[in-house]
């Protein structure tokens, strides 16, 4: 294990609040019970210090899913932007891409290969895919989906090297996204202006659902 991996493991352990657990039954609730999602059985899940749900099969260096719920004001900490109830999905995607680009010099040079509207848990949201190379020249791909509610911003992402891992496990992420549901109490909360705007003006079949 090289120095980088040691550092990554140290950071990973430091950031995780609960011990890792094997996913035994696919339906899994989020740390605050505000959402539920089908995760692939046999993978390892862990709740991080920031109440993110981190899931991996072979280790986070090879593939991971990360589900995050944050208050809208803390949605984009690096760029110091907030999710707002007047934002369209494309605007949320724009801020999310800026956030990833701000991570480091490698992600700063990323290429957006896909960026489309998406419906997640019945909400209008976004889905985009980016690719970039790491310091070893290994190409990494990430797919990020997200939407905003009045009280929270939800984001799901999947990341893996293009070589073998991305295509192998991306379908598992797609299943997770398709199964993602907010809990009943969350469903009752009012939606964002943009959500209402789109809902009132588009029928369900108008939207891109993938």
């Amino acid at each position: 294990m090289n120095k980088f991996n040691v550092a990554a493991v140290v950071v990973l352990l430091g950031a995780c609040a609960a011990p890792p657990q094997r996913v035994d039954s696919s339906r899994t609730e989020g740390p605050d019970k505000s959402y539920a999602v089908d995760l692939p059985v046999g993978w390892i899940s862990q709740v991080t210090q920031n109440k993110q749900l981190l899931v991996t099969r072979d280790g986070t260096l090879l593939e991971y899913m990360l589900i995050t719920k944050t208050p809208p004001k803390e949605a984009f900490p690096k760029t110091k932007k907030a999710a707002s109830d007047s934002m369209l999905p494309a605007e949320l995607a724009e801020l999310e891409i800026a956030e990833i680009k701000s991570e480091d010099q490698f992600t700063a040079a990323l290429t957006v290969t896909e960026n489309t509207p998406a419906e997640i848990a019945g909400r209008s949201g976004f889905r985009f895919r980016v690719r970039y190379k790491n310091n070893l020249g290994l190409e990494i791909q990430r797919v990020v989906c997200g939407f905003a509610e009045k009280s929270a911003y939800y984001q799901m992402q999947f990341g893996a090297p293009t070589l073998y891992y991305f295509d192998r496990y991306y379908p598992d992420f797609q299943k997770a996204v398709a199964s993602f549901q907010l809990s009943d109490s969350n469903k009752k909360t009012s939606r964002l202006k943009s959500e209402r705007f789109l809902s009132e003006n588009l029928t369900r079949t108008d939207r891109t659902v993938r």
Partner: protein
Amino acid sequence: MRRNRAIRQDTYSLTASTLAARRHRSRPFARCGAAALGLVWALSAAGAKVPPFTDSSALGQVTGDERRVWSQGNEITQAIDRGGMIYENPDTTAYVQGVMDRLFPEFKGRTKVAILKSAQLNAFALPNGRIYINQGLLARFQNEAQLATLLGHEGTHFTNRHGYQNEMSAKDASGFALFGAMLLPGAIGLLPQLLAISSVYGFSREMETEADVQGYARLKKAGYDVHESPRIFEHLMADVKAEDIKEPFFFATHPKLADRVQNMKKLSAGSPAGGDGTSNLDYANKMAQLRLDSLEHMLSMGRAKSALIMLSDPERLPEFPPQVQYYVGEAYRLRGQEGDVKLAEEAYLKAIEAVPEFPPSYRALGVLRLKANHYADAQKYLDRYLELAPDAPDRGYVESYLKIARKKAGGQP
């Protein structure tokens, strides 16, 4: 940042003070790391002097520890190359290299300049003679003399063997460096930690001052207008202010930006006015594509305030190609302060007038009109956008907006 802290797997940041300052605010670990690194720098500041390289023939005689430090530099160079971070524009790169060679003719062929795809205002030199300049910094400069000031400074770090000196004098402190590196994995990752830290984040106060003074001498000898030299630090100061960056930790041991402006002014005070490299127009022509690419990159990272330093200055706007008004609009939209929507709209209209075939202006204006409930207008602009850019990557979003606009516009006069 908090979202991805747990899963960093491939990070190596070359960013300078700006990013370091952000870490201070958002990562508690970073404070400890910063303190450790600061200590390393403080220790290294007291390092032993080695004589500078006098010309490129001396480079072949590098041996022992220095050869090892160069190898570490090569590793960083390889990581940068493999990471796809190089801004590929042969003409611009050749131009910048030409300025470097004019300043350091005795090292021609041994110092190699590359441009990095980064909006941060930063540049650095590695011990192996590789000089890296961020795209954002090149875009911010106004003329060749300012560029030459920077290259004189960075080239001096190489010729005076600052990387090697830093590495040697801080050798005993490498345990601390590793500690810091592990706390700041995003900053230095698996690369030769101490070298990366010192090269990228700056050298000791003495070395930085030496590079300022000797770089200035190079500038003067090459015939550039030395009165442009303080401007490069003024650009940095403006960026720090615009992005609300707290004074970075390493400035505790480095000359502060304001002091460096004063130092450069003192150095140039006795020199007669005039000299080469003062034409803003010549520089603008050479940097036209890079400036647009840099704006695009800067705005895609959400750095609207930083972009507006250039774009809100009426004297600087003519330095850009005509479609710059679109980027002006984007910068106001992204900044999102009171009155910015109106400013954005005005800029998009100017962009359409200046370059009617430039699609993004129509999309941007269409979305603004849609959000303002002016549906007929929105439909007109969004239709035009898709007409000009039928394969637009954001077509899915635009089509969804068009459906709304068409539905609503039906009820409008």
